[in-house]
């Protein structure tokens, strides 16, 4: 009877309850909508980071992250890969060489990033013209924008000049077999990709590589446990293992800061809504003062009266939650795809911002929105409920 009584009490003053629930519903819809939008954007960014240049984790020669040097190597990458498979079963690894150089074609030249990648194993780029490595000697792929800058196309000739790890001059002539785009505008404009063995030979690295890029079987933002497991398994005197958040700390800090800002905004929204609930419940309790006196005189314990008023808040929060989530889902799925190309162009902190976003409801938003809605309703209802519970029956019965 307590449940049904509280439910019916919600509808005693339907207009007031609907106004209260509308405020709560819009609060929930706002939180769910903004959370989903933000996290979907971050999800795309993290996916691009972890599947592209950076990966979830990387293993380097000790000190490479702070001071990248052509001579700071993972000297025995195949052994390290074996250790890594033991520590992180199911993880995929990619060996990579990275160096700086100068590329020339015809009378044009440009500073470039020379990448040595494992043909067929890298997800770093997508071909935009020509073909991927075919196994022929002296093949090179270049970023689409760099190709434009150097005015070189598929089949064109490219000369690379750099310095080897042993101090020798590194230079060679290559044929462009294709151009690519990647998850980074910087790569598109500066990167030249060579097959790994070709790059190791070019920079005189022997078997060494600069990066072992690790991709975990499940894509997620927090890879703290995995990086700790990897550190425990590696020889940390000669190697370093870093998560993507450690390699892009500003990116992670920016995401966390925006999340905190959103949290503050959520708090403000629900503070306002909570005051509305408080006002509505105070009115409801005041109007029913005499009835609470009757219930008390019939033998209702104060705790039950408190529970009844809190249940009224529960029903309103529950309905508002369902309506709010439905509104957010309608908005998000109804909007569908958002074109962000006008808002976000190029890289931010080395990561290309998404240019379009498939909107949808992020299930992780529901827990927070539910907690906030119910907490707000309960917080707003608690003091009126307490007042109802603490009424002295004889005084409540005199109330008109």
């Amino acid at each position: 009877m307590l449940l049904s009584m509280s439910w019916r009490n919600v509808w005693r003053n339907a207009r007031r309850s609907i106004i209260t629930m509308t405020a709560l519903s819009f609060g929930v819809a706002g939180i769910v909508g903004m959370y989903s939008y933000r996290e979907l954007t971050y999800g795309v960014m993290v996916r691009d980071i972890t599947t592209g240049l950076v990966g979830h984790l990387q293993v380097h020669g000790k000190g490479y992250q702070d001071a990248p040097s052509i001579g700071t190597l993972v000297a025995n990458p195949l052994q390290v890969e074996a250790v890594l498979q033991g520590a992180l079963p199911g993880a995929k690894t990619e060996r990579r060489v990275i160096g700086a150089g100068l590329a020339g074609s015809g009378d044009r030249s440009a500073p470039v990033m020379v990448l040595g990648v494992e043909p067929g194993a890298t997800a770093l780029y997508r071909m935009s013209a020509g073909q991927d490595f075919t196994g022929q000697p002296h093949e090179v792929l270049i970023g689409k924008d760099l190709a434009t800058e150097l005015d070189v196309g598929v089949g064109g000739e490219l000369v690379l000049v750099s310095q080897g790890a042993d101090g020798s001059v590194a230079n060679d002539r290559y044929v462009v077999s294709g151009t690519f785009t990647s998850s980074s505008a910087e790569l598109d404009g500066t990167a030249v990709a060579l097959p790994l063995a070709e790059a190791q030979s070019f920079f005189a690295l022997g078997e060494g590589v600069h990066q072992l890029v690790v991709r975990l079987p499940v894509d997620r933002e927090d890879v703290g446990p995995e990086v700790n497991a990897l550190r425990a398994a590696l020889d940390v005197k000669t190697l370093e293992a870093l998560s993507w958040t450690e390699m892009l700390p500003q990116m992670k800090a920016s995401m966390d800061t925006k999340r905190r800002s959103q949290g503050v905004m959520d708090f403000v929204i629900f503070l306002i809504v909570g005051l509305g609930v408080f006002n509505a419940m105070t009115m409801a309790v005041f109007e029913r003062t005499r009835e609470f006196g009757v219930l008390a005189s019939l033998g209702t314990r104060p705790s039950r009266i408190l529970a009844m008023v809190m249940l009224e808040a529960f029903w309103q929060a529950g309905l508002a939650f369902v309506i709010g989530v439905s509104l957010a889902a309608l908005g998000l799925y109804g909007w569908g795809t958002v074109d962000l190309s006008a808002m976000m162009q190029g890289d931010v902190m080395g990561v290309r911002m998404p240019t379009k976003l498939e909107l949808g409801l992020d299930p992780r938003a529901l827990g927070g929105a539910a907690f906030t809605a119910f907490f707000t309703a309960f917080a707003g209802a608690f003091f009126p409920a307490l007042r109802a519970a603490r009424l002295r029956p004889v005084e409540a019965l005199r109330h008109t």
Partner: protein
Amino acid sequence: MAVVEVENVTRVYEEKGQAPSPALRGVSLLVEKGEFMALAGPSGSGKTTLLNLIGGLDAVTSGEVRIDGRALGKLSRPDLADLRRDRIGFVFQAYNLVPVLTAAENAAYVLELKGVPAGERRAKVKAVFERLGLGAFLDTRPMKMSGGQQQRVAVARAIVSEPAVVLADEPTANLDQATGAALMDLMRELNRERGITFIFSTHDPMVLSRADRVVRLVDGLVVAT
């Protein structure tokens, strides 16, 4: 054996900025099980105050009220609520039914508080409603009932849990003469059938004529019993 013992009770209302106002001044009273007793007196004589004190709705300034030998002044608020639930029924002048509950749910409310299973509640309420001529109103909301019907539902609510004592504060005040007389006859029959003790406050001669005993209060003092 006395169901209700009122021992030298005073109740003084003190409002800030106003002189203390004594509503009861040393009232003592014993009510035996099965009595059908009226508290009579003019408005302001202390009838309702005394009923409130006996029902544990208000606290004495001095003296003591006991129900079934239990001193109300020594009980906590939850214990007082339990005592009211288990031992006392109330009938109010203004009926005071809960508007969101049906007539049957109003009557069953106390049984639900006592943890009586739903089926048993329904059966008990139905039996009492039949007895009070309310059989057709089980699922009717109070606002769709007449004053007399609502007051009978209030009586049903007061007696369905078979309390030791029913306290009725001017139960006929809002009813016409015939309806009020019928209600008093009904309460009298319930008193005789079930042995429930009734204490009601009134200044209605019709009600007083049906009481076994009349306790007269004037200015907070018992002047005749």
